[in-house]
């Protein structure tokens, strides 16, 4: 069981959260119209075997979106911070 350290609520089972995918890809600007930029953001994944920075929302808790560091090779969970405190890379 992944245990995710929610910065607001404390460490909880991952079942209280909703996975939101790769958080290291910067989202294009709202008025960006370039199809390739959005395509790469939406459809292409680094999908690393190893450290991964990813979104989770504590849907059954404080409903905050978090950015979590996790190793996909071992499922080792690292630090989490609120996404609103500064988005990905």
């Amino acid at each position, binding site marked *: 069981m992944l245990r995710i350290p929610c910065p*607001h609520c404390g460490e*909880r*089972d991952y079942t209280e959260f909703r996975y939101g995918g790769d958080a290291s890809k910067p989202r294009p600007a709202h008025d960006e119209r370039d199809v390739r930029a959005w395509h790469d953001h939406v459809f292409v994944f680094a999908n690393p075997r190893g450290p991964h920075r990813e979104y989770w929302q504590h849907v*059954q*808790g*404080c409903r905050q979106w978090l950015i979590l560091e996790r190793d996909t090779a071992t499922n080792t969970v690292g630090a989490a911070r609120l996404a609103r405190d500064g988005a990905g890379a």
Partner: protein
Amino acid sequence: MFERTTSLAGCLDAGGRDGAEGGRRLRIGEVRGTSLVQVGTWTEVHAACAAALARVCGCDPPASPRVATDRDAHRLYRIAPDQWWIATHDEALPATLEREIGAAGGAVTVLSDARVRLAIDGVAAKALLSRLVPLDLRDAAFPVGAFAQTGVHHAPALLDRIGAARYDLYVLTTYAVSTWEWTLDQALPFGYDVVVTAAADRSRPMNSTTRDSR
């Protein structure tokens, strides 16, 4: 003319049942008459909203996201970095908060009818809750006064420990019947009595606990 009914209106005449462990080691029921308000703020008005909240409720809003504060009829929870819940049996409070917090630039949403407040009380309360929520309920991790937002049978809920053996659970209104039936089902081995209380029944209702159930 307009009668107020709760979602559990049809469920509370269950009386009680003896469990396999002998007797009735739990009192489970609904606490009625609680008003619930959510307050949201933004960085630049956060301090002003906190001040307004303190003024209206008579106590500082908690900085801790794990422990609630209370004063008189009001109990305050910090449910998110920029959001509070205020639970109260003061029916006038929502309107006051809408006015005062609105003036301070924050947002107020009345959730009184969006949640049903259940109470679980008795020697087996912790054992029952260990079947309902994936939380560390050991005293060091979840002392009296602590609260947590979590999930009960797929639906979000807020669990509040208001006494040594008394826990209140705020569940979504539309899931309330389901959660209630689920809770009673899980409580069966412990045995239970069904009770209904009013939030305003006692002078410090949010702190009340039945001592005989220790």
